[in-house]
């Protein structure tokens, strides 16, 4: 998937050379970052062989909380710290359903997606609200020494780099490749799965917060588009839906691929169907090549 990523990046740069200025890079990453965070969340769940439909719901809960509860009053900004925790709890609920309730991940998170979506809609029935001004301008800033979006991306990648060396990460891969074997070799499968869903909730909440900060408002309906996009990005990044193979870094590249496709079609003023067909066609081609490679290897 790396050649695809590089090719699209080159095309994007050739079409609009001024994209290489610092503010433009910052803006591109700013556009891509919510999807990147959701993709990372989806990625770690897919690595265990599960799936999380509810990322869209968790995302909007965090999004509207940031625009109302956090941004409603002066001096309430400290509440922002609690929003990711709420995401952690919502994700933990998914984990409980999957681990304790023995639900299929697809169904469990389909149900909680509706519930979380409803909660977000209850908090903020129509798009609006306001985020803390200072935080928003910090998040939107692309002209300072290091644009905030680049900083956040670097932090995300750095955390992933550290996390790769942890036991939890190793356990995720071992569960994804063979759950029974992982259990036999002493991996606490239940605890690991629970943690994965909880962390996915946390990451989805961060995506929601960031989206609220860069747009300055909240919207309880923006989450739905991220559910399948995050799965698409993971697949474009070479994550196997059966679990156990692929890396978060490549999933991030997959999220960028989707962003580049949108960018290129809008620069060339191509009709909207082009980007839809491109993304869908790429998806089929990539999964086809992947499945063939796996079969013949």
């Amino acid at each position, binding site marked *: 998937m790396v050649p695809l990523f590089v090719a699209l990046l080159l095309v994007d740069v050739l079409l609009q050379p001024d994209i290489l200025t610092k503010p433009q890079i910052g803006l591109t990453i700013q556009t891509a970052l919510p999807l990147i965070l959701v993709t990372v969340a989806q990625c770690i769940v897919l690595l265990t062989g599960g*799936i999380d*439909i509810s990322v869209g719901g968790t995302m909007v809960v965090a999004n509207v909380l940031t625009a109302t509860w956090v941004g409603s009053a002066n001096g309430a900004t400290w509440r922002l710290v609690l929003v990711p925790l709420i995401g952690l709890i919502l994700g933990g609920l998914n984990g409980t*359903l999957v681990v304790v*309730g023995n*639900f*299929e991940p*697809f*169904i*469990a998170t*389909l*149900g*909680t*997606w*509706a*519930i*979380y*979506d*409803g*909660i*977000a*809609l*209850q908090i903020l*029935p129509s798009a609006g609200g306001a985020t803390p001004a200072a935080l928003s301008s910090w998040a939107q800033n692309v002209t300072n020494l290091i644009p905030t979006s680049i900083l956040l991306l670097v932090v995300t990648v750095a955390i992933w780099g550290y996390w790769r060396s942890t036991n939890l990460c190793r356990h995720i891969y071992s569960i994804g490749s063979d759950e029974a074997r992982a259990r036999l070799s002493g991996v606490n499968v239940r605890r690991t799965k629970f943690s994965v869903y909880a962390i996915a909730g946390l990451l989805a909440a961060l995506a929601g917060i960031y989206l609220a900060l860069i747009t300055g408002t909240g919207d309880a309906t923006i989450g739905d588009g991220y559910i*399948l996009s995050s*799965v*698409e990005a993971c*697949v474009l990044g070479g994550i196997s*839906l*059966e679990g156990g193979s692929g890396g978060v870094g490549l999933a991030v590249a997959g999220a960028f691929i989707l962003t580049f496709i949108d960018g290129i079609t809008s620069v060339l003023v191509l*009709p*909207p*169907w*082009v980007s*839809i*067909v491109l*993304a*869908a*066609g790429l*998806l*089929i081609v990539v*999964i*086809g090549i*992947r*499945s*063939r490679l796996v*079969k013949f290897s």
Partner: protein
Amino acid sequence: MNTVLHEKTAPLAIAAGLGRSVMAAARHQPAAAGAFALTLMLFAAATAHSLGFASLSNVRTLSIFAAFVGLAAMGETLVIIAGGLDLSVPWLIDFGGIALSQMHRSLHINLLLILLAVVFCGMILGAINGLLVTFLRAPPLIVTLGVGGLIEGYLVAVGTLQSSGDVVPDGIERFANANIGPLPDITLIWLVLAVLAACILSRTGFGRRIYAVGDNARAARLAGIHVERVRFATYVISGATASLAGILLTGYIQTAYVGMGADYLFGAIAAIALGGTALLGGTGSSWGTVAGACTLTVLAGLLPVLGLNTAAVKIVYGAIILAGVYFARALQQIGDRDRGSHTLCEIQPAQPDSDSETAVGIDPSRAVGRLGTRQTTGLGR
């Protein structure tokens, strides 16, 4: 006065009929029966709250919406039982509606021919799903998502090239809003096709092969079943029912647009899951999906009656999906235990033939399970 009375008693007759079918199904499909019972309870609760809920016109409207969910989910039920997944359903619905209006405008031929052509095109799209899934051996979730994206792209392109003003054929509009006896046309089509799907699943070799493939593809292949062919066929059927749902939906709402099927993406899967069909494949029934579609529709109609806003509706909706799936699974397990079931995918020592013979009569999935078991143990011997 008489008509008022009639309006109040007719639904009771329908409910009684529904009750009888629940009793009959309960023995074989406990999960489906559970979902039907849940539907009835929700219906009773809504009627207790406001009598108008049980009026003929409301029941008709509800049954039409249930029919859309049920049709969208019908082919997908077969796909899921065979161990697949079809996420392209909402775009197939869009396609059914838009292709209908486009063909009606450009081709001046008999409406019935147009309908057949649209369903046929839907089957071709389903066949593309099936071909990609079986040839590429790729995860169906991704393949059908990609095909759905391609369909969406095509529809958006067609929509922008030929500007608006799509006309829905009068004939299909009249049909979609007419009734035969107490039942709307759409509901009738749905129920007839549901019976057909149930018969295919429980009374034909093809149906038994669907269960076998979903239960254990390897064992099915060893038993001489063309796994790919069976899976391919289920996707084609899903393409047909989803595009038919699109045609009828377009007739009913009298317009067609990209995105009109969006609600059926997860709605169909929720209905299937509520009916006791496991997403892992190998179990489930057409009746379960009918029941699940009824539950979801009555629920969606009930909640606004109770004065809940959209947000609360979504929350309850999600909670019911989870609770319903949980109980469907529990009921199914109890039913399996009552019949002395064994896990089909396990390779077990050959059972006495008399024992297996009785099992054949009870459950089609068991018949195939026995076939698979015999074959695998035969190889081991």
